[in-house]
């Protein structure tokens, strides 16, 4: 049942121009950053060679591409997620799924996985760019795998938060703006909160605040560190917001 809903979401996404526009724009932005960084890398190569332990192409070219993709997700995920619930409510098509013998949890998981599959495609496209350099240079595959995993977790976090805001309103644009605001707030306030709490040595509170800061959880991956705490935080965030979304759908059935 989850797979049916996820499959429908993917099909609908690719039937709408939005998905193609998002893919194109993401690819253009990442491509620009990739080429720009590659250019810089080639110019600096002679100087880098003099260093004892010079950073490689993966660090100097791939990491910025993934960082850019993270920034692009901040704008595109809310737009893609607004379709999931808010737009379906507005078009009165959600009734089909709500009348079917499917639980709210399955609906939420199906919608989430459908969107995540699309986002993972973007992540794969981001990975293809540095991989195209494999013939010319030695890539740090460990770092590259870390970047892919980190970006995938970030995408999942953004998707879960945006899916929840999509459940809150019948107005798709309001849902998108709400998701964007929530993600931006989590990024800025999350960072500030962690710094502030750490400065006061409230370490436990700081560690907890990290759950609500997806970007913070992406940082260790970008440095090539596999931080299990960051992974746990990201997964916790996803589960938390998906549970909220399912509850919200159930509450609307009760209070309507």
């Amino acid at each position: 049942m989850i797979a049916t809903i996820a499959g429908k979401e993917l099909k609908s996404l690719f039937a709408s121009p939005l998905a193609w526009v998002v893919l194109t724009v993401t690819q253009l932005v990442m491509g620009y950053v990739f080429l720009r960084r590659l250019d810089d890398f080639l110019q600096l190569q002679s100087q880098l060679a003099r260093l004892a332990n010079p950073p490689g192409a993966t660090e100097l070219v791939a990491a910025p591409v993934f960082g850019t993709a993270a920034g692009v997700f901040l704008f595109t995920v809310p737009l893609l997620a607004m379709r999931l619930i808010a737009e379906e409510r507005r078009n009165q098509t959600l009734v089909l799924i709500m009348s079917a013998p499917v639980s709210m949890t399955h609906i939420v998981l199906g919608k989430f996985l459908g969107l995540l599959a699309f986002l993972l495609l973007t992540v794969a496209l981001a990975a293809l760019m540095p991989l195209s350099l494999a013939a010319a240079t030695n890539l740090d595959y460990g770092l590259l795998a870390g970047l892919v995993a980190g970006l995938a977790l970030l995408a999942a976090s953004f998707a879960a938060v945006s899916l929840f805001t999509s459940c809150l309103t019948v107005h798709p644009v309001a849902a998108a703006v709400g998701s964007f605001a929530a993600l931006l707030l989590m990024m800025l306030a999350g960072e500030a909160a962690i710094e502030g709490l750490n400065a006061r040595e409230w370490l436990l509170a700081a560690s907890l605040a990290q759950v609500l800061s997806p970007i913070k959880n992406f940082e260790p991956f970008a440095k090539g560190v596999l931080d299990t705490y960051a992974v746990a935080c990201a997964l916790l965030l996803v589960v938390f917001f998906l549970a909220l979304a399912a509850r919200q759908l159930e509450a609307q059935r009760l209070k309507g």
Partner: protein
Amino acid sequence: MPEPDPAHTIFAHGLTRSFGNHVAVNNITLELRRGEVLGFLGPNGAGKTTTMQMLTGNIAPTHGAVSICGIDLLERPTAAKAHIGYLPEVPPLYRELTVNEYLRLAARLHRVPRAMLAEAVTRVQQRCGLVNVATKLIGTLSKGYQQRVGIAQAIVHAPDVVILDEPTIGLDPNQIRDIRGLIRELGGTHSVVLSTHILPEVEMLCDRVQIMHYGSIVYSDTIAALKQFERGATIVLGLRRPPPPEELAAVPGIAAVERTDETLFRVQVSPGADPTDALVSHAGARDWGLYRIAPAQNSLEDVFVNLTRREDIQ
């Protein structure tokens, strides 16, 4: 509380739903047996759609219980929903999918096994006259075809209960005939709840009729009884210089007289009698000033208008 027997496909008791302070549906009872078609009538805003949303599990009732084929809809929603097919007022169509893709999705969501998917979709397309448009995008279809896709979606999994909210709205007369034929066919094997504003449609298709007004059921009877009631004749009589009602009631063949207006009377005829001749000759002889004599139309429309107008005046 009464218990459902196995023949009941829908058994809803004490169903109440309020939105804030507004009570949209107030303590209604709805029972439906296998093979029965129930006409669900009422003016706009009477609470019909809310009731249907409760019967299909789209919204939860504030009070009351619904059981579908003996399964409690509130306690085991997914099991109960498997027996329901629902066409809401606005058909839930994904415009970006083809008819085939959409019906396959609806069938999968309603747990039609993968092996039987193609067969179920083909059968429902034949039934609803969708074979020619199977590969077209739903968004490009005309309103009539979209409505048919909506109905197809509701019956693709052969549910025991089919709930149709105004299925013939916006269709041309030929399409309406087709859809009515389909509903009649469905009534043979499934139970159908049909909400509509077209009263002859109800008389044509339904076994029973319930009329809803301001959130309550104000009329519930079989169509057969309604037709019987129609034949048990009443006469509307207009007299410019009316006698006292007792004098009128004394005319042979008259069971009861009710004054509906200054000069208008509703005369209940004794079973088997025809007092028309007697009334005309009495009226002539006693100078009552007869200006109107007509059999009263006690159709569904009268019942509907009477029940749903009267309370507006109060």
